[in-house]
């Protein structure tokens, strides 16, 4: 059919990665390139060793050909993530992280771990963050009712993860509440 079964309920993680890769990022190019018009806008000029701003997909593409170094975003470092992790483990709410931090950090750690400081520590911090937040979002299921559930600071990948179960549960609650008045 027009849309395969697996894509009907939700957007898939690779698609979220595709969306995230449109965000802009700083790189240090190793090749020069004139300012070029792309469909999403004009980028460049690349003039080593000056920094330039390009979309993540372009940075990843250049990086995998060893034509640039990636400058880590301001939030992708040990200090910042440790700070957020402390918040996650001491406070009940979700800490404030970029909406697509999971996708972006995954892409950058995959292709550009040599441009990041202490990638192993970053990986373990991100994993701890994920687990702490996951526990909280599961806990949020208790507060689910038929009308609304606020999820401040939840990131896109986490929403996608809880989507099938939360949507189904809330839908079921809606039906349970609606029946008496309809009959």
């Amino acid at each position, binding site marked *: 059919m027009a849309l395969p079964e697996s894509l009907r309920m939700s957007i898939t993680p690779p698609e979220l990665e595709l969306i995230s890769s449109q965000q802009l990022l700083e790189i240090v190019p190793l090749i020069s390139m004139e300012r070029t*018009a792309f469909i999403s806008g004009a980028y460049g000029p690349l003039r080593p060793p000056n920094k330039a701003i390009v979309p993540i997909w372009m940075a990843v593409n250049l990086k995998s050909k060893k034509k640039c170094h990636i400058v880590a975003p301001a939030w992708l470092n040990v200090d910042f993530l440790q700070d957020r992790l402390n918040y996650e483990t001491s406070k009940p709410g979700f800490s404030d992280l970029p909406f697509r931090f999971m996708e972006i950090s995954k892409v950058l750690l995959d292709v550009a771990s040599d441009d990041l400081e202490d990638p192993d520590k970053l990986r373990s911090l991100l994993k701890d963050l994920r687990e702490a937040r996951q526990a909280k979002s599961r806990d949020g299921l208790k507060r689910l009712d038929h*009308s609304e559930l606020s999820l401040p600071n939840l990131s896109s990948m986490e929403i996608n993860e809880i989507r099938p179960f939360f949507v189904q549960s809330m839908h079921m609650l809606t039906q349970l*509440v609606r029946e008496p008045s309809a009959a």
Partner: protein
Amino acid sequence: MDWDEEYDLLAAGGAAERSFVERARNALPDDDDLDMPHGPPRPAAVPFQLQQPAEEETPLQQLMRHWTNERNCPDILPAQEELLVNILDHIRRQSQTVQLLREDASTSEDEHVRIMLAQTEMERVKFIVRSYIRTRHYKIDRYARFITTNAEVQTRLTAGERDHASRYANILDRHLYKCVLQSLPPAQAHLDDTAAFVPSMITQPDKTRPVFAHARQDCPPIRLPDGTALEMQKGHISLVPYHTVEQFVVRGEVELV
């Protein structure tokens, strides 16, 4: 020119030319020359925003937003015909440029990097366009009978999509009639009975299905099913039944994530 035609042209390698007048009518205010937001995208003072909302959305960002909305929305959203024509037009121009550069033997090594990047981007954009159209088609197939009986939904479709919906509903009806219905007693041979306590035979979009709504700007209060009101501030994310935020999604104040 409707989407399918546009798309066929694209599939054929973008070689076909449209008349100048038509191109001019649909052309963007030539955004090839437009500067993209440059300078640091996230100023140091406010390092984290959920998105990068400060600048005007580019056509591609708009398409991506409509695509994710469409994917997460139980109903069919208004068609973005003009936007899509713009983007397809842009892809075609880009692929012509690339083609010319590739054929030129004097193209330097540096140029190859540019060509490669341009091609990568075209594939990315094509994927989104394709997925967007397929998502709509899936919903149209699914709700075909409902679409043919409901004038309001039809206003949200393009001419090509309306045509497809009615043809599809027709074929399906004929098929069901030939396979089963013709051998049933006439009283039971309808496809649109509305018996009490049984869901309607015509599948309709279920607007009570919950969606994750993300406010792109401050929104006026919405009324929730339990009677309370919710005022969504910019950046707020909520799981709410779709019908409560329907108007906001159509107006672009809320996106579905």
